[in-house]
């Protein structure tokens, strides 16, 4: 074959050139496989190298038999409604043959379409009695046209959709840093009953381990203990009598006294007396490590001597 002497043609041919060249003839007769430099080929030259990938690309460019048919119709600048079934069938078959020749794994749909085209073609060639025509119902060609039209409108819709501005390609969500969430974090809400239930649970649990006797607490004493500690946290020495408030009456004095006793018992405070029958001062326990401080302030208060009463 002469073409074998023109190595430049096929190997260097671009995919597009092959695609255009392949179905070029619309002759009713033997359809050449390809026309290269005006020369028609009816079969693949045995020594012609078309990279299999290239052909696959061409064939994969078609989204099925309807797409291929549409392509063939458009190539002839024809309206779908004006297709010449015989022509199109022939061209279609050329493609299908080519796919087979290339051992391209042919989707079954292509063969179904081929059969349908053949059927339409044969029906149009064979004259039928008018009665039979009525029974036949819809013209198979009409059905094919309808499918082609249907497919084409969605094919176009897909193309249109691809043109729509799209997030991440043409548009971006505009965002800015949100305010610090800590600014408005809502705090847990607690109901007093919840708190008491939690405490009751603790007791229940504790009861399981030990037969602990929980005495009736004097909360007022506890509270007074905290008040005393609070007072001491600001000053080193506080005169004991200053804790006793006349307006609280006898009960208040007792509560304070009990609170101080309890604090002493728990080694939280110490009583300090600088001389016999002198004023009793109270201070936070463990003042030794703040000894200098304590002494200084004591000196400032005019109580240089300290006596620890346990």
């Amino acid at each position, binding site marked *: 074959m002469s073409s074998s002497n023109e190595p430049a043609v096929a190997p260097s041919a671009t995919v597009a050139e092959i695609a255009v060249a392949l179905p070029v003839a619309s002759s009713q007769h033997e359809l050449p496989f390809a026309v290269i430099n005006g020369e028609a080929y009816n079969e693949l030259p045995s020594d012609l190298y078309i990279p299999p990938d290239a052909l696959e690309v061409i064939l994969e460019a078609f989204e*099925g*038999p309807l797409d291929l048919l549409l392509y063939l119709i458009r190539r002839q600048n024809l*309206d779908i*409604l*004006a297709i010449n079934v015989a022509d199109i069938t022939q061209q279609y078959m050329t493609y299908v043959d080519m796919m087979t020749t290339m051992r391209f794994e042919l989707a079954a*749909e292509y063969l179904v379409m081929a059969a349908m085209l053949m059927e339409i073609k044969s029906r149009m060639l064979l004259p039928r009695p008018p009665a039979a025509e009525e029974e036949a119902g819809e013209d198979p060609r009409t059905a094919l046209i309808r499918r082609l039209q249907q497919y084409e409108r*969605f094919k176009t819709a897909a193309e249109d959709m691809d043109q729509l501005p799209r997030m991440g390609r043409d548009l971006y969500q*505009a965002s800015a*840093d949100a305010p610090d969430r800590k600014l408005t974090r809502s705090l847990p809400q607690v109901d007093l009953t919840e708190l008491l239930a939690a405490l009751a649970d603790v007791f229940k649990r504790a009861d399981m381990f030990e037969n602990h006797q929980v005495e009736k607490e004097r909360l007022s004493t506890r509270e007074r203990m905290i008040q005393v500690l609070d007072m001491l946290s600001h000053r080193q020495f506080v005169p004991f009598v200053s804790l006793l408030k006349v307006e609280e009456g006898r009960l208040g004095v007792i509560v304070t006294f009990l609170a101080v006793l309890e604090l002493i018992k728990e080694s939280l405070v110490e009583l300090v007396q600088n001389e016999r029958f002198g004023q009793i001062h109270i201070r936070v326990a463990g003042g030794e490590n703040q000894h200098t401080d304590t002494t200084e302030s004591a000196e400032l208060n005019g109580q240089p001597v300290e006596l620890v009463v346990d």
Partner: protein
Amino acid sequence: MYIAPELLRRIVEGALLAANQPLSEDRLLSLIDAAERPQKSELRIALQQIAADCSGHGFELREVASGWRFQVSEDLAPWVNRLWEEKPQRYSRAALETLAIIAYRQPITRGDIEEIRGVAVSSQIIRSLTERGWTKVVGQRDVPGKPSLFATTRDFLDYFNLRSLDQLPPLADIRDIESVGQSLEESGGVTTAENTQPMAEGLSTEPESGVVREAEAEVDGEVDQAEK
């Protein structure tokens, strides 16, 4: 008692920018204490004003299916795109066609899609559209095999910058099959593919031709069907 209009505008702006996703009008209103919460009409006025304020800026306010969002203006894409190394994802024709068929013909089964496309639809395509959050199964058709019915999602509309399905480009019309005989005589009749482009353009400006109106009617019918 209503919140001051200026504060309302600022809250809406702040919320839309902080949210990083569209917010519905109800959601926006829910940010304001019931005692001060304005009417929806006041919110709309605020939104209009915000939209107007965007003019001349690099962003705009847009209503899409799931609400309002600020978005970067489309004409800035050439520059803004350089922020990212990767090119935005492209979708295969098969995927786009499948998506388009679902969008215009929902709810629809895979079999229906295959019928229209003339080829099998790979599960891979269906899966990736679903994973992307663009399509979802909305039920089963009551026929043997109970095939799943697919529909598009709100995210799909958001992604394509649409408020509702009827904002999709109109489907080309199908000419009456009865005219086939006639058309056979005519040569080089106007093809459907050729007239779709002007249609899309026509919609964005003024639908003046009869063709466009036909197309719109067609689409409305389709979408109505889809919504049922």
